[in-house]
């Protein structure tokens, strides 16, 4: 991290000392009475928002609360039906993202929205390249790029393509671009979703510096810890309405969650996975299972009726391990025994025929068939298992779908609705139903609760426990330690592509998991 952190443009940013009192003089952007409807659905109903210079403002709410609609209105991607926006006291009306940008509002989206096929320089300057004699001045751009990035502690080859850098670096470039371009308001939409802990620390460091520089920063996240760690002020939306806007000191966790949910916290964790007696019969045994360059060989025995939680940072090899267990990537060493029989996993088909199921981390990309109906999404894995000749007819399909819609409480108007119209939580349940329909004995769930609202979150957690009671073996990968602790009968910890620890019984608590994950840093320090 650089120690000298001078404001790029003192004129426009302003060096006012940050105040947390929220005096009106400090207000950069005000949105008042914003209304936005899509068809007959009201996404935002009379919402206000005021952003202050030198503050980090967390914008919270469940999925569908209207956060992203509000952001899109502030950044000019949508135009509101009613209401007004003013920047520095001047009323504005954005019809394009460019207008919002030039008015000082910069945005960094969840999936880093840059251009992977272009160079770092292009990504920093596209749309505003300096020109000489009508042509783009490349030398000047390279100099500027180095200067800008050095402020963020990045010393990289600015002529290299963006896709050659890690997500964290790309994110910093995205922030650098947004700040250079806009300089008054910086909107960070779930910036930490795909970063590991050290990367998050780095990012927060940068955000704090930008805050000190007088930027108004909007921070959208699902992680409540991070909200309390970073924010000065919190605004909560629910069902398109403003629930409240408070400074951080006036809030505690419980009241925040209550604001988001509109009710008391539905799921109380730490109903501990009861007994620490070893579940009865072993189901399968991965021996020296691994794939070079992806997961180092690991040993793992899985029993019927147990939930194995997998903890570890992003990039620790947890998802890779899951892919290996499901035959998406093939293991190049080791063996798998199921009920004493040696099984070869060459493709997902092999895993499915053994009664495996896999809910992938990225629902949208790897999970749902958006345009297909809820019914088809539920029966497809079962149909794939049956083969193309034994087609389920419509009545059979409906029967299966109806059963799971009811059993998992999937909220959909009909089983004929395209699944893309469902909320994230319900989509997750559809994918779960898809695998339950195949009558599995072993389920792998990769981040089953990521990005879904708190209510559905609780239901999924309950479901995991119920499936365990039904005798299924489950592997659940999750970043939320509280959650892992609540349902796991065993926890394995991944680090540096290796399985490094196995915790049971009383060892299963957040602090020992954190210790196991963090052991590496301790070793490195020695």
């Amino acid at each position, binding site marked *: 991290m650089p120690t000298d952190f001078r404001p790029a443009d003192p004129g426009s940013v302003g060096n006012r000392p940050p105040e947390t009192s929220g005096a009106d003089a400090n207000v950069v952007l005000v949105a008042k009475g914003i209304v936005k409807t899509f068809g007959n659905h009201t996404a935002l109903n009379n919402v206000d928002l005021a952003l202050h210079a030198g503050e980090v403002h967390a914008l919270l709410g469940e999925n569908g609360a209207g956060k992203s609609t509000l952001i899109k209105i502030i950044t000019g991607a949508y135009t509101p039906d009613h209401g007004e926006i003013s920047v520095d006291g001047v009323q504005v009306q954005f019809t394009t993202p460019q207008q919002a940008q030039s008015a000082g509002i910069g945005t960094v989206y969840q999936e880093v929205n*840059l*251009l992977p096929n272009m160079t770092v320089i*292009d990504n920093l300057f*596209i749309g505003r390249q300096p020109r000489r004699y009508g042509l783009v001045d490349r030398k000047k751009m390279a100099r500027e790029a180095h200067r800008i990035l050095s402020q963020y502690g990045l010393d990289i080859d600015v002529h290299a393509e963006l896709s050659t850098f890690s*997500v964290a670096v790309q994110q910093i470039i995205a922030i650098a671009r947004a700040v250079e371009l806009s300089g008054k308001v910086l909107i960070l939409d779930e910036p930490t979703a795909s970063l590991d802990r050290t990367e998050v620390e780095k990012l927060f460091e940068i955000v704090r510096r930008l805050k000190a520089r007088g930027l108004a920063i909007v921070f959208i996240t699902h992680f409540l810890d991070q909200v309390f760690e970073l924010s000065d002020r919190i605004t909560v939306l629910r069902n398109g309405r403003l629930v409240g806007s408070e400074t951080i000191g006036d809030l505690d966790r419980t009241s925040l969650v209550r604001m988001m949910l509109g009710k008391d916290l539905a799921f109380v964790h730490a109903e501990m996975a009861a007994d620490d007696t070893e579940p009865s019969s072993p189901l399968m045994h991965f021996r020296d299972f691994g794939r070079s360059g*992806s997961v180092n060989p690991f040993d793992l025995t899985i029993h019927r009726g147990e939930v194995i939680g997998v903890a570890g940072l992003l990039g620790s090899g947890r998802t890779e391990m899951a892919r290996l267990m499901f035959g998406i990537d093939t293991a190049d060493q080791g063996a798998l025994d199921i009920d004493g029989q040696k099984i070869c996993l060459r493709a997902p088909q092999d895993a499915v025929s053994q009664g495996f199921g896999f809910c992938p981390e990225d629902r949208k990309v790897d999970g749902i068939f958006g345009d297909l109906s809820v019914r088809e999404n539920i029966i497809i894995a079962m149909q794939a298992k049956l083969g193309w000749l034994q087609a389920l007819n419509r009545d059979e399909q409906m029967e299966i779908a109806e059963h799971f819609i009811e059993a998992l409480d999937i909220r959909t108007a009909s089983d004929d609705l395209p699944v893309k119209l469902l909320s994230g939580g319900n989509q997750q349940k559809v994918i779960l139903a898809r695998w339950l329909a195949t009558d599995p004995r072993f389920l792998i769930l990769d981040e089953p609760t990521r990005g879904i609202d708190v209510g559905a979150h609780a239901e999924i957690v309950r479901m995991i426990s119920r499936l365990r009671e039904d005798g299924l073996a489950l592997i659940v990968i999750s970043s939320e330690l509280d959650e892992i602790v609540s349902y796991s009968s065993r926890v394995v910890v991944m680090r540096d592509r290796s399985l490094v620890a196995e915790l049971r019984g009383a060892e299963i608590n957040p602090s020992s998991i954190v210790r196991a994950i963090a052991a590496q840093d301790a070793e490195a320090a020695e």
Partner: protein
Amino acid sequence: MNPRYRPLAATTLIFVIAYGLCILQYPGMWSTRILGNFLTDNAFLGIAAVGATFVIISGGIDLSIGAVIGLAGVVVAVLVSHLGLHPIAAFGIVLTMSALFGAAMGAVIHFLQVPPFIVTLAGMFLARGLASILSQDSIPISHPFYKTIMDLYYRLPGGGRLSAIGLLMLLVFLIGGLIAHRTRFGSYVYALGGNPTSAALMGVPTGPVTIGIYALSSLLGGLAGIVYSLYTSAGYPLAAVGIELDSIAAVVIGGTLLTGGYGFVFGTLIGVMLQGLVQTYIVFDGTLSSWWTKIAIGVLLFLFILLQQLVFSAHKAGTRLKKAAA
């Protein structure tokens, strides 16, 4: 070497080697005369291929190029031979019309959000149909201005002739390269090919750029039509049928990725030259039948697609490893 230069380097290398082998077999192919004819004979294809390069880098496709060439030729012929306009005036009219035609396609693609494949297919039918309605036969152009231009050439050492239209093609490539790599518009084209959503969020005016890309493609199609009419001294509604495929082949052989986002205008020149080389070789050989040209170009196309696939999948794998290590 930066992996994205590899297809371009490979194309260039293959062209040099292939040309070298040709010369070994037929030393007569090593002359400025042959090179000059290369440029003259492929001028219209080259000019059209520059337009195709922009379209393909932006992630689109333009099937209407050949039809626009035909239509432009017929309109020039009608204006000059039937209506007695001076060719320069006719050129101005045709180029304006072509650009507007492309702009209209670009507007439909952008505003209706429909695949360019189907829009430019409609454009192809429309342009070819209009050309056929204007005239079903070839209209000869015998204006003295045409003769003047075709007699203009620069004598190369060794007796070769760099004709006006050959020179025009090189000029188009030069300007095309400048636009692609040294202007904002050029960077917008790459941005659009990389990720249109990101591009829009980063402030790239996607609408005007899309319209501009297809306008440029059709403008160059119109220019290629004019060149074709100069080359053949006539306007023919069925001229340059299927040229869009040759130009797409030239672009791909030249190292541009058909999925968009990567590519070089200069590579397209090599791609055009490589196709010309195949034809020239078959002419020199004399015993080989013309269909071998198609087969050879098909094989070349396949080899380069395969090469790109290898380079880019290796590239991606490298990125993934880096990410995992980070």
